[in-house]
């Protein structure tokens, strides 16, 4: 079971959280101005990296807050968690690939 550092509550077990998929995909300001191709990518196309992945997590059975996390999908190591709207301090590409 992963140990996840909620930016608001500290370390909590994985069962308190829900993963919300890839982070930093902003909803377009004017969806109506987006063509079909770009809209379908916004809706459906997600990264599936082997290595560092920026993800959204929700502390659903805790404070209820959403936050972002950098997780290495190979080692399951959490490199960093940070509040919504913030940018990660760490490099998002360089984690060692086991």
């Amino acid at each position, binding site marked *: *079971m992963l140990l996840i550092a909620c930016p608001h509550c500290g370390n909590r077990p994985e069962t308190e959280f829900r993963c919300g998929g890839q982070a930093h995909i902003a*909803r377009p300001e004017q969806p109506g101005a987006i063509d079909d191709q770009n*809209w379908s990518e916004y809706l459906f196309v997600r990264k599936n990296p082997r290595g560092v992945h920026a993800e959204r997590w929700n502390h659903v059975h805790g404070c209820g807050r959403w936050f972002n996390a950098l997780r290495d999908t190979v080692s399951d190591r959490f490199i960093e968690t940070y509040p*919504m709207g913030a940018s990660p301090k760490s490099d998002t590409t360089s984690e060692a690939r086991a």
Partner: protein
Amino acid sequence: MAQPFRLSRGGRIDRSRPIVFEFNGKPVHGYQGDTVASALIANGIHLVGRSFKYHRPRGILSHGPDEPSALLSVDRGPGRVDPNNRASVVEARAGLRTASQNHWPSLEYDIGAVNDLLSPVFVAGFYYKTFMWPRKFWDKVYEPFIRAAAGLGKAPVEADPDRYANRHAHCDVLIVGAGPAGLAAALAAAKTGKRVILADEGPEPGGSLLHDPKAEIDGRLASEWLAETLADLDARENVILLPRTTVFGYYNHNHVAMTERVTDHLPSTAGQAPRERLWQVRAGEVVLAGGAHERPLVFADNDRPGILLAESVRVFLNRYGVAPGHRLVVATSGASAYQVALDAKSAGLDVTLVDLRLEADCGPEVARLRGAGVEVLTGHTVVGSKGRKRVSGLIVAPVESSGRCGARRVIACDCVGMSGGWTPAVHLFSQSRGKLRYDDGLDAFVPNVSAQAERSAGAAKGTYDLADCLTEGFAAGAAAAGSSETHTFGASATLTGFQPVRVMPTDADPKKVRAFVDYQNDVTAKDIKLAVREGFQSIEHVKRYTTTGMATDQGKTSNMNALGIVAGQLDKALPAVGTTTFRPPYTPVTFGALVGPARHALFDPIRTTPIHGWAEAQGATFENVALWRRAWYFPKAGEDLHAAVARECKAVREGVGIFDASTLGKIEVVGPDAAEFMNRMYVNPWAKLANGRCRYGLMLKEDGYILDDGVVARVSDECFHVTTTTGGAARVLAHMEDYLQTEWPDLQVFLTSTTEQWAVIALQGPKARQVIAPLVEGIDLSPEAFPHMAMRTGTICGVPTRLFRVSFTGELGFEINVPSDHALAVWEAIFSAGQPHGITPYGTETMHVLRAEKGYIIVGQETDGTVTPDDVGMAGMIAKTKVDFVGKRSLARPDVVATTGRKQLVGLMTEDPKLVLDEGAQIVLDPNQPIPMRMLGHVTSSYWSPNCDRSIALALVADGRALMGKTLHITTPDGFTRATVSEPVFFDTKGERVNA
């Protein structure tokens, strides 16, 4: 109290406390401190079971958790029967009833042993090769046969009467195994003041020290050192010492699972303590000191009762004070077994030692043993054994380095101790995703690169010398606690080193020799070789094809021998073959421990409304809806579902019905930007909705498909009372929170679930107003002042209410929201006031029928996550002027705006009005078209409608609205039936009644 094989002294058993338990109905005498295995051996019993496939007589192989053969059914009292317990780890206690398994009619005379004679047939992959055809034999012949033959013990049939507990714990250092390395690690870690947990699977900490009474540590007897160390640890408040606790799983981020056996060893099952406790520990650092497992030697008939692992012979002698036999032959390819021979000799046994190694390859242990008067045959192989239900002789022969065997010799014996070297227990390390390294010198895989905050020490790392184990353990414990302290221990020397051997050289035809590698699954060396010859090269494939290592012991004794045989057949180096994957659990875990308290009412929580008890008292039948338990219908005497629902449906349309709608999800949306937020979340326009008015809201996902629906009331400029479907409440709130927090954090809105705070009493029917009129204060109930789709606040029976005039039945209706605490009182008052009007309680089934008569959709029934507002005929609700809302852009997707092919909601009228279609039934245009037919859609809702006096159905049909009046064909269990496409409204099609 005959215990013919009990030594006159020695061992850690308590001879002042004799105990008696049962084996196969006969009494077995032993002492406190015995295991079932040691007590059986003390009574001269070695035959304790029949093997899995060939039903061969099997005995006790080991003294520990790696035991593959001695699996017993253990009965601890009524309802407390467990199969497949390892006799070597079950603590003997008065009153236990143990029994052998896998034989008929008896252990001594087992009909199934005929399989042994047929063994040439039962080769590797027997099932795959045999049970192939004819196809129809599968269900009736093969599967019943395989199921009857599979498995060893019998699963219990009664519910488990025991209680199991669950505990979460945190520590700085978790140490696995309380042998020399683990104890030294605990000492070092404990001194730093860090929180330490030391877990050991045995009843008594000490590991190998418990059967090594003559060893010395730092100038003292090991037993003294052990007692002092335990006293030291016990006195420290920062140390938790857990005996009888098996660490069975090593998961992510140092999450470690273990089971503590709390009461099985106690004479009485009464009392408050749980049987077992599941610990989930989150450890800062883990020290793995779980020791090593001895390897059996692979030779013909190496499975006869009386043939044990050599170190286990020593454990039985020294720890339990029992002799596995009077005449012992030790067969080995390494040095450690010489200590076994020495200890056996001094215990008074007649001992011979046979060593595969040539004299020149052996160490001083040979001279030492000969000096003790023991015959030592170096350069000898074992080619077989004699006896059947008990070994009576070992057949040995000199072997040259070329592998050629000399003249055979039979050494008469009643016990054999064999040692093919040692395998570090790297199970937990591998579970932690650490990478192993093959060590040539140790002939073993040892921990290499860690993936988590852990380190191994002692035999688990391939360190076998006692002093080295202690020193290494101490350093590991200190380092894990962040200290660099070291301590170099002095201890008596340990005999170490062995020559790797996969299969003992033999002069017999290897194709005819049955030398067992995996005892529990009856896999022989020739099975593994056959698998490789048949093309299986990956060790994972060989494992599954032959089932080696797949039994409940997970190949603890067999894996290295199996790997070595495969490597030899493939002519590859052992590391090139690799190992199979180690998975939790390390040893079998009871289901009870895993389930813990989550049984019965706690298995799956049930939510009930404040009206629940009333409905029960009325004799309602209930159904589960999401986590809720809701009243389904209220049968009167003699009524079935059909009759009760027919009566309830009529009552609502003709008089008045009362329905508990408290399970509806409710969300209070509050704040200066509440209206703007609602505009963005729902397709409907909200800005101009007046205070005190309601609107049916439709919510989409960003992909344009319907997520939820529900009536929303505007309470004030900055407050909306939102309702959701019963099952969608949590989902809708999460959906709203997601957007609010992550996309529009600038909006000033607060979302609060009020599902449990508001109870909802739905009062529906032409007489509804008359019923509540005398009870309501502060609200003008007249149709002019309080029209359909309005909400007023006031009191009912003196209780504050948000009174909705809404309808999910198509009748005049109210949904009376009151605080949950007062709901039952209000309900009862309304029910009482309704008596003169014939008020009728109705359940969810009637609610479904009434709404279907009106064509009102249920999200999740008429929709399935691919349905747009237009598909269900609700395009008109979408606000025309809003630039954006969640899902709007997707409504312009090419596949959504497609002019043909989308499935649309329609009604279906069966040609036979009595026929009620099956929900989910498929719909086609032409039943005579070739298979596969083109499916137009499916029936989403279907009921008998008492008010229409015929069946009605809703369906999603491709281009359905263009098919009005056409005949379609719908599948039934008896073939196709015909129905006409209609508008999806069947009763009061003009919708006038709701405004009454």
